[in-house]
């Protein structure tokens, strides 16, 4: 299988704090990777660099053949639009847009909107009857499912999920995890930051970070 992500000696410093310190690993297409570690270990920094939200101080972060470190502001924007699907812990939906419009917003920034496709994406995450609801009218689990639909709508090469179940109750967590299992089964490549070992066990590989360094890599038995 081809590597979708190749990270080589990745470093990131904020002022004098070293958030990532020579991280190297690769992710094959269709893999589900769980990135774990204590707070401040560099998990979110890693995700942000891979998603083009931040740039490394040195090293390489190649996603689907594109070295993120070499992109300018406009290139990063295009990269995020075309190759990445984000799912955040805080959902991050636009509060005055309906579920459907939140999904279509990602289409609009990518190229052109297709309402039918956006409806199908929401149907797929089980929200066919909630498309005209505003985020404030949806439960946390429903909002996260809208975020998943939005992440999928442009057919990204890589899904980056930062604690996607961190704000959900047990029932909603299960619904969202089931979605991720389905996405994985369909061949999507997923990098998921999580604190929960039970979620980490669902992944193909678990990468532990500590103080910005790769502590250990565990492959699911």
């Amino acid at each position: 299988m081809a590597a979708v992500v190749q990270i080589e000696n990745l470093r990131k410093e904020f002022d004098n704090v070293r958030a990532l310190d020579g991280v190297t690993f690769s992710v094959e297409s269709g893999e589900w990777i769980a990135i774990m570690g204590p707070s401040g270990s560099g998990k979110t920094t890693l995700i942000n660099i891979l998603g083009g939200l931040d740039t490394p101080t040195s090293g390489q972060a190649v996603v689907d053949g594109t070295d993120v470190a070499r992109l300018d502001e406009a290139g990063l924007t295009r990269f995020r639009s075309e190759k990445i699907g984000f799912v955040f812990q805080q959902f991050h939906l636009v509060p005055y847009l309906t579920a459907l419009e939140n999904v279509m917003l990602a289409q609009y920034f990518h190229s052109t909107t297709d309402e039918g496709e956006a409806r199908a994406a929401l149907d797929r995450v089980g929200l066919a009857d909630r498309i005209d609801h505003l985020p404030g009218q949806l439960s946390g689990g429903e909002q996260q499912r809208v975020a998943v639909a939005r992440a999928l709508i442009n057919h990204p090469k890589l899904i980056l999920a930062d604690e996607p179940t961190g704000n959900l109750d047990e029932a909603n967590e299960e619904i969202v995890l089931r979605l991720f299992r389905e996405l994985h089964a369909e061949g999507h490549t997923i990098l998921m930051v999580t604190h929960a070992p039970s979620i980490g066990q669902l992944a193909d590989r678990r990468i532990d970070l500590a103080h910005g360094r790769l502590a250990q890599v565990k492959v699911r038995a």
Partner: protein
Amino acid sequence: MFARLVWKLVRGSRGRLGVALVAVISGAAVISALLNLQFDIERKLTQEFRLLGANLVISRSSAAQTGVANQAASDALASPTLMDQSAVLGQVERLRTPDVVAAAPYLYVVARVGGAPVVVAGTWLDQTPKLDPTWKLEGNWIASRVDETQCLIGRNVARQFQIAPGGQLELSYLGRSAQLRVAGIIDAGGAEDNQVFANLPAVQTLAGTQGEIELVQLSVSGTSARIGAYTSRLATSLPGYDVRPIRQVTQAEGSLLDRTRLLIASMVVLILLLTALSVLATMAALALERRKDVGLMKAIGGPISRIVALFLAEVGVLGATGGLIGCILGVALARWMGQRVFGTSIAPRWDIFPLTIALMVGVALAGALPLRLLGRVKPAVILRGE
């Protein structure tokens, strides 16, 4: 999708945008009213100036150099230099334009009433209400210029001879006499209160000067330049006669028009600035509120140009909506101001609508400068919740 997003943005921030909208509507209403006044002010002011009476005098000699009609009348009485009625009035009629509000010949004699001298002016009495619109009248105007049986008398004459409207007045001059019925008593607040006004043929018969007049008074509307041009045409066609504008009136008119235009232009600029400042304050607060949305939009791949275009369109909608509503209110305001200031309503000018709306859109966009700051938003920072 663009329009849909803009609509949602507007709805999503309707509270804060409402404040800016009120500012834009207020600004547009006042600007629209002022521009309506600005464009209509010339017509209104010249109408106002016509209330001051004649502003052009034709006479035979330099006696007409004096500005006011009564001074001219006094001079004519002192050294009467008569003009041929048909020659002068023929030219006046030939060159008549819609700007000529009224024109009337005058012939003055000092007749006697019961032995007491009184100035009698022969004119066209049907022109008097238009030529001297500020005169107050007790009784009736005389609608015909050929009615030789009636006259108007000044209030001092009425008091002196104790004559009421409907009474009789017997005039005598060099052995000739005329019996006239008093149709009305005028209160001009000037020398005219001491005079008797009869139609020209009656006074010509009394004076024995058929077909002759002393001067012609005209009330001409328009700007100083238009009145000047008309004066020149009239002077060219009447060689040997003095055709003179009454300078106090025309110069005051030009000066007042210029000052009024400057005042209105200054107020428009000031209001535009104040409106822009008000929008600026609202947009600064809105830009802070929108940081999170913009950070998210950038994170999911939104180019800053497209994101800013959304917000600018939102501001454009704000300016256009405020401008349109303001224009409609401005028409009502202009009408009210017209009634209060000029005593007549200002006719709305529809070409002011696009001008005001364009100004308001421009002002709203200028006030949206703080949205520029959104370009600096770092999505990673926003998503961290900082």
